[in-house]
């Protein structure tokens, strides 16, 4: 299967024909490097036994799209840098997590540019890159069925807000703007059997005119990004197990993070080591005209998988999950409830049903320009209103909420 993915420098776009294929090569270099252990290796929700499934494991790692620094691309903005060496590593990691989501979906064209108030050459963090993926020049919103990107705030994933993605898409579908294929209607697909389906989407959306297929009614595959900080200065070891659990989930789409200053795209773990793709290699920009197929060799990392101790992880990360379908998302929710939320004091993030009332209203990202304006307005309004909630007494500020 082939698809076109737009690599970028990060502001001009180089089309690449990325061949996603399960080629089994000879990985002699890899074999020596992996520890000979009975511990399972987890790569984005897939479990491997190093002793018996080496070639499958290495083939999986090799197939992941790898984005690195590039040089000699056309200068950004005409006069800017023509290489992102030294500053673009977190953006490259953002491209990798996005590419992974698109690979999962087997579709798509994605473009990425810099954004979120940063200028070219500035360093990025995991949350900022997540926001770039959400609001930035993603150009994914042109397609009704393309990727929806949700970025959590304050460690909290709100199911109701994610459901709004479905609702909006569904409405578009039933307004007749999109093709329908007459499979089953989602009202018919035994919603009562699924633990997370009672979210009132049908009620919100009104009566179903006639059956739409899941695609036509607008399930948009979801890239869920959860920015976290797992400790003030260093990774707090109490979160190691929860982090590992994330890589075991079938929806795992990797983790953005790194060592101090160095951004990596983490795709799995073996024992107490994380496995990652490293963007810190400068390759020549791939020179091609738009739409022209390009050799994808430099977009797959041929060497043995990089590993590092989990305890050396810089605490600031963004967890990534890809939910292909509604059922997939439901499955993710129940697994999170079981694995993460249940461990009350060791949880990494929170999963809640309803939009927290003290938050500004959730606005699903639509077009980048529209969204940016809306967010600014909300902020001003909220700051004004909360000022009245404070009163001062002696040295304390007393909150009366």
């Amino acid at each position, binding site marked *: 299967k082939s698809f076109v993915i737009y690599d970028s420098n990060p502001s001009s776009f180089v089309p690449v024909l990325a061949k996603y294929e399960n080629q089994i090569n000879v990985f002699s270099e890899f074999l020596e490097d992996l520890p000979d252990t009975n511990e399972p290796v987890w790569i984005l929700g897939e479990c491997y036994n190093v002793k018996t499934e080496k070639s499958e494991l290495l083939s999986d790692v090799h197939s992941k799209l790898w984005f690195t620094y590039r040089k000699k691309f056309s200068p950004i903005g005409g006069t800017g840098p023509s290489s992102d060496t*030294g500053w673009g*590593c977190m953006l490259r990691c953002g491209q990798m997590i996005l590419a992974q989501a698109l690979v999962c979906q087997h579709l798509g064209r994605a473009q990425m540019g810099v954004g979120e108030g940063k200028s070219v050459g500035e*360093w990025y963090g995991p949350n900022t890159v997540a926001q770039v993926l959400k609001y930035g020049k993603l150009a994914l919103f042109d397609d009704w069925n393309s990727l929806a990107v949700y970025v959590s705030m*304050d460690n909290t994933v709100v199911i109701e807000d994610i459901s709004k993605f479905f609702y909006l898409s569904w409405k578009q579908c039933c307004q007749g703007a999109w093709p329908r294929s007459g499979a089953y209607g989602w009202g018919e697909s035994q919603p009562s059997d699924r633990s997370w389906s009672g979210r009132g989407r049908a009620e919100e959306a009104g009566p179903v005119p006639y059956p739409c297929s899941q695609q036509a009614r607008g399930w948009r595959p979801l890239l869920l990004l959860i920015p976290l900080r797992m400790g003030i200065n260093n990774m707090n070891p109490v979160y190691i197990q929860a982090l590992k659990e994330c890589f075991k989930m079938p929806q795992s789409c990797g983790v953005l993070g790194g060592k101090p*200053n160095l951004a990596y795209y983490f795709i799995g773990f073996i024992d107490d080591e994380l496995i990652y793709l490293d963007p810190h290699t400068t390759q020549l920009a791939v020179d091609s005209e738009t739409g022209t197929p390009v050799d994808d060799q430099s977009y797959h990392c041929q060497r043995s998988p990089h590993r590092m101790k989990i305890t050396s992880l810089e605490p600031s990360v963004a967890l990534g999950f890809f939910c292909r379908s509604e059922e997939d998302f439901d499955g993710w929710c129940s697994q999170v409830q079981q694995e993460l939320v249940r461990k009350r004091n060791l949880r990494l993030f929170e999963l809640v049903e309803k939009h*927290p009332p003290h938050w500004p209203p959730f606005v699903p990202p639509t077009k980048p320009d529209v969204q940016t304006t809306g967010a600014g307005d909300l*902020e001003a309004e909220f700051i004004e209103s909360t000022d009245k909630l404070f009163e001062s*007494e002696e040295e304390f500020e007393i909150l009366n909420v």
Partner: protein
Amino acid sequence: MSSQYQHSIPFEVRRREGETVRAKYPNKIPIIVERAARSQVPELEQNKYLVPSDLTVGQLFFLIRLRVSMRPEEALFFFVKNSIPPSSSPLAAVYEEHHEEDLFLYITYSNESVYGA
């Protein structure tokens, strides 16, 4: 944890004040909110808060977010003793478990790290 407040004020003074406000405001919780030493987030003008005990962790965090003028799109992270307090917990529960001997609860906030090299 290194609290600037703890460093600058002797324990006895803090403890006395903690006892006083606990007695005067039994339904409020004394909290010190401080920026993490090496973080790039704005400093709060006020670090000492008396907060209703039924306020949730998440509610307090959102109020602090507004106080430091950070947009929802900007990452802001909070810690109690280097751990992430569950946002749905009432502050009373967090206080009960984690307050210091001076009867204050200490909360540290930080932003994301940036990467580039």
